[in-house]
């Protein structure tokens, strides 16, 4: 293999954000004409690495060296990297829905004749590019009128319009169905045979195993290893071991669960996508939660965990189709968030900043926001009660802030998360659903959050934890459901849970039950 020329070499890449080292001495070697997969858990640094490569983080904002086509390169922005033939295709496609395929392919790169855009020529070239990616459509079709799989192809055609030498695909099949995914993988094989180099970031290990020549595994911002698929005889288990292989011992507080009866149950839950109604995001899902139990939901990105949680939480996502919720033996109907709160449900969203908090508020107002009735009489707020509630939680959760008058936007991620937890604890819930409760939080704060979660369980509440970090689920949860493509594919008791087992369940539809 070493006789094939090296196309790209990233050496000793270190990228720091204030307070956090996102990448630390990462090395990556990509040879001409191969498909190189990059694997790692969420937060391992895959995307950051690609942003360094493509110039999103310009030269100077990182340490280390990038050698491309044999020479050191210093990209100042994305444009510079594109000119060098490096094109990233993001998971969320950068297409303009109301423009035609041709217009999208040549956006920002329009072929001109005497100053005016040469649409005839553009259409001809577009047809040629579309043929290369196997897309059979009228080039005048609007992008919004074709499916996601075809949109992906338009994006790739767009890359070819720029004379691509190194194609980077970030989770290219995450939003695609089986057939479209297969088509895309075939396409990548075709590129390989024509000498085009690809880097692919993916969580779908079966795909990686099937298609990649080389696999570089990142963990916690470092290169763990680079595997040669054929020479090393790599399989999914091997990749998983590389991705999750870290010690789990001291990262979680000791906890002896005190699990009671089942008090919350969701049965045959079916929900459709809010916009494309043909997409079913929850397929006949059923699960139970016991008092005092911490239940985990494991799944890949886009598996439908958040969608399940939010649709249960007062139908705040998607279009409800069918399914029942039973709490304390009685069926309840939650048509709005207010209903859900009134019935003792709480949902801590995965994206604190976008949908969890009003960043303009101070800690006080944030803490009481979900249950103002508790601190008001006839609609008039009691300032003192508000203060006391907020201050109580600040002390209990050890939120680091000078006073509860501090704006939440000034808090660190961990402390913001504590405020969100306080906000939902204040509603006196029986069931807390925590969506990625430790995302973007440093290790010390994670430990504290875990302790809070355990304390809540010990108070007899049911806790549901959705997380992409398998070690977190294994360390924290008494029972774990795995979710794949909108369906629950497994239920695993803590004693049987290990990353390999979970990862398998999260990537296949075969149902396995050990609990």
């Amino acid at each position, binding site marked *: 293999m070493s006789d094939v020329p090296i196309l790209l070499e990233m050496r000793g890449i270190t990228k720091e954000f204030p307070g956090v080292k*996102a990448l630390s001495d990462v090395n990556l070697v990509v040879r001409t004409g191969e498909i190189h997969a990059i694997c790692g858990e969420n937060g391992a640094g895959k995307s950051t690495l690609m942003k360094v490569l493509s110039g999103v983080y310009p030269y100077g904002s990182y340490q280390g060296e990038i050698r491309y086509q044999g020479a050191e390169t210093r990209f100042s922005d994305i444009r510079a990297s594109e000119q060098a033939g490096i094109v990233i295709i993001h998971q969320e496609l950068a297409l303009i829905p109301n423009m035609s395929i041709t217009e999208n392919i040549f956006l920002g790169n329009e072929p001109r004749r005497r100053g005016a855009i040469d649409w005839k020529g553009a259409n001809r070239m577009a047809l040629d590019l579309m043929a290369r990616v196997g897309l059979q459509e009228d080039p005048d079709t609007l992008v919004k009128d074709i499916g996601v799989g075809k949109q992906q192809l338009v994006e790739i055609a767009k890359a070819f319009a720029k004379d691509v030498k190194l194609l980077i695909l970030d989770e290219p099949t995450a939003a695609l169905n089986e057939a479209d995914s297969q088509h895309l993988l075939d396409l990548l094989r075709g590129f390989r045979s024509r000498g085009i180099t690809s880097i692919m970031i993916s969580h779908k290990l079966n795909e990686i195993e099937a298609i990649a020549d080389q696999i570089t595994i990142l963990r916690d911002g470092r290169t763990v290893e680079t595997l040669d698929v054929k020479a090393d005889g790599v399989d999914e288990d091997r990749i998983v071991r590389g991705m999750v292989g870290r010690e789990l011992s001291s990262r979680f507080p000791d906890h002896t669960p005190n699990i009671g009866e089942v008090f919350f149950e969701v049965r045959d839950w079916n929900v459709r996508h809010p916009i494309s109604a043909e997409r079913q995001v929850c397929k006949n899902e059923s699960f139970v939660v016991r008092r005092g139990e911490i239940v985990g939901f494991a799944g890949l990105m886009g598996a439908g965990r958040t969608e399940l949680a939010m649709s249960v939480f007062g139908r705040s996502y*998607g279009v409800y189709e069918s399914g029942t919720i039973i709490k304390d033996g009685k069926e309840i109907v939650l048509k709005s968030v207010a209903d859900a709160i009134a019935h003792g449900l709480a949902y801590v*969203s995965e994206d604190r900043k976008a949908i969890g908090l009003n960043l303009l508020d101070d800690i006080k107002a944030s803490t009481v926001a979900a249950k103002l009735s508790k601190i008001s009489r006839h609609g008039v*707020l009691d300032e003192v009660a508000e203060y006391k509630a907020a201050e109580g939680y600040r002390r209990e959760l050890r939120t680091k802030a000078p006073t509860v008058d501090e704006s939440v936007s000034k808090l660190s991620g961990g402390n913001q998360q504590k405020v969100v937890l306080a906000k939902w604890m204040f509603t006196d819930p029986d069931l807390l659903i925590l969506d990625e409760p430790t995302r973007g939080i440093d290790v010390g704060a994670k430990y504290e959050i875990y302790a809070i979660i355990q304390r809540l369980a010990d108070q007899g509440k049911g806790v549901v934890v959705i997380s992409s970090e398998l070690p977190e689920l294994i360390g924290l949860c008494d029972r774990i459901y795995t979710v794949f493509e909108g369906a629950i594919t497994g239920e695993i008791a803590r004693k049987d849970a290990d990353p390999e087992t979970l990862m398998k369940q999260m990537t296949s539809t075969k149902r396995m039950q050990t609990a």
Partner: protein
Amino acid sequence: MSRYKDLQKNLFGGTTSNARQFGMIFTLVAIVVLFQILTDGLTLRSDNLIALFQQNSYILILAIGMLMVIVAGHIDLSVGSVAAFTGILVAKAMFEWSLPWPLAILFGLAIGAAIGAWQGFWVAYIGVPAFIVTLAGMLLFRGGNQFIGNANTIPVPEGFRVIGSGFLPEVGPNTGYNNLTLLLGLAACVAVVWREFQARKTRHAMDADPAPMWISVLRMAVMVGVIVFVTLRFASGRVGTSFPVSGIILVALMLAYSFYTRNTAGGRHIYAVGGNSRAAELSGVKLKRVNFFVMMNMSTLAALAGMIFVARSAASGPQDGNGWELDAIAAVFIGGAAVSGGIGTISGSIVGGLVMAVLNNGLQLLGVGTDRVQIIKGLVLLLAVALDVYNKSQGRFSIIGSLTRNFRRDPPGSSPSPAASTADREPATTAPS
């Protein structure tokens, strides 16, 4: 420095105040002093103060409603037209159907509420942006005004004029002042002192150190001083004049709405919706209801403003309400509200409106023509908001933030947290929306 900060924080009511509002109050004082000097004492003379309030009460009432609309993240361009439409209907009702004026006022408020319900329906339940709904409303109700009034000017009866140009009656012994105005002033002083003690008590209950005593004393002295001064000014005008009725309506609304926005769950919900509507929704706030309410409330206040103007002008005319929306919006933004919603106070908007009003009045007293007055007002609006934006961007601006904005969903302007940047970007974007 800390004393200065204490002072700033305590004088203007704790956390809801911000540097901008503080700055605007000083700007207001500075402008008043400046014109007081330039006009040789005309600015603070009784008759001018009375005129100032009468001329601007309707704009300030609009600013109250507009503040709530803007805080909720909307805008209302139709207020001038709604005011004119209500004005002509009310005038006609009294002129042609001889509706007694107190009933006519209720009739006008009902029209405002009905229009507001119409606009609120489109904004809240259909989801048409308020800008569009009220732009349509602006045309709709302006046309309605001309249609109903045939572009004529219709006079209103004497009794009705009280709400626009009326004064408190002269009662009691001859003190050389308007006695009722004195009583109002006294009540205001008592209220200020009472509120200060209440605030100290609250702070105490919050286990927080109440503001140092000297600050409380200073604050009360300043407030009482201002109230006494203003009261005497208003009470010592020409016999038959006093603090104007429209001013009393304004003050009552200001107090009521300040209380509502600051101290009630309903008010809190408006800020929550404007600050982050998705987060508010996920906290159980009924978005549609809040949006409906702010739009309906705005039109009702616009109707009231229209009636006050008609009462002051003694007639409803086809030019009524022209450009009012812009004055009200300007007042709100000068008063510290954020264009993106979620930030702003009633008192700030009133101060913002007064800055514009005093500027207008002072320049007119100096004999500056409307052309130049408009230029100056335009510049003041731009500078006030630009200064605020500049201050906000200081210390917040970040190259990384601006570069990675395309890839994340953080609200623009918020500093990128290290966590969000290091995490692979996909999780942050799966939130269904």
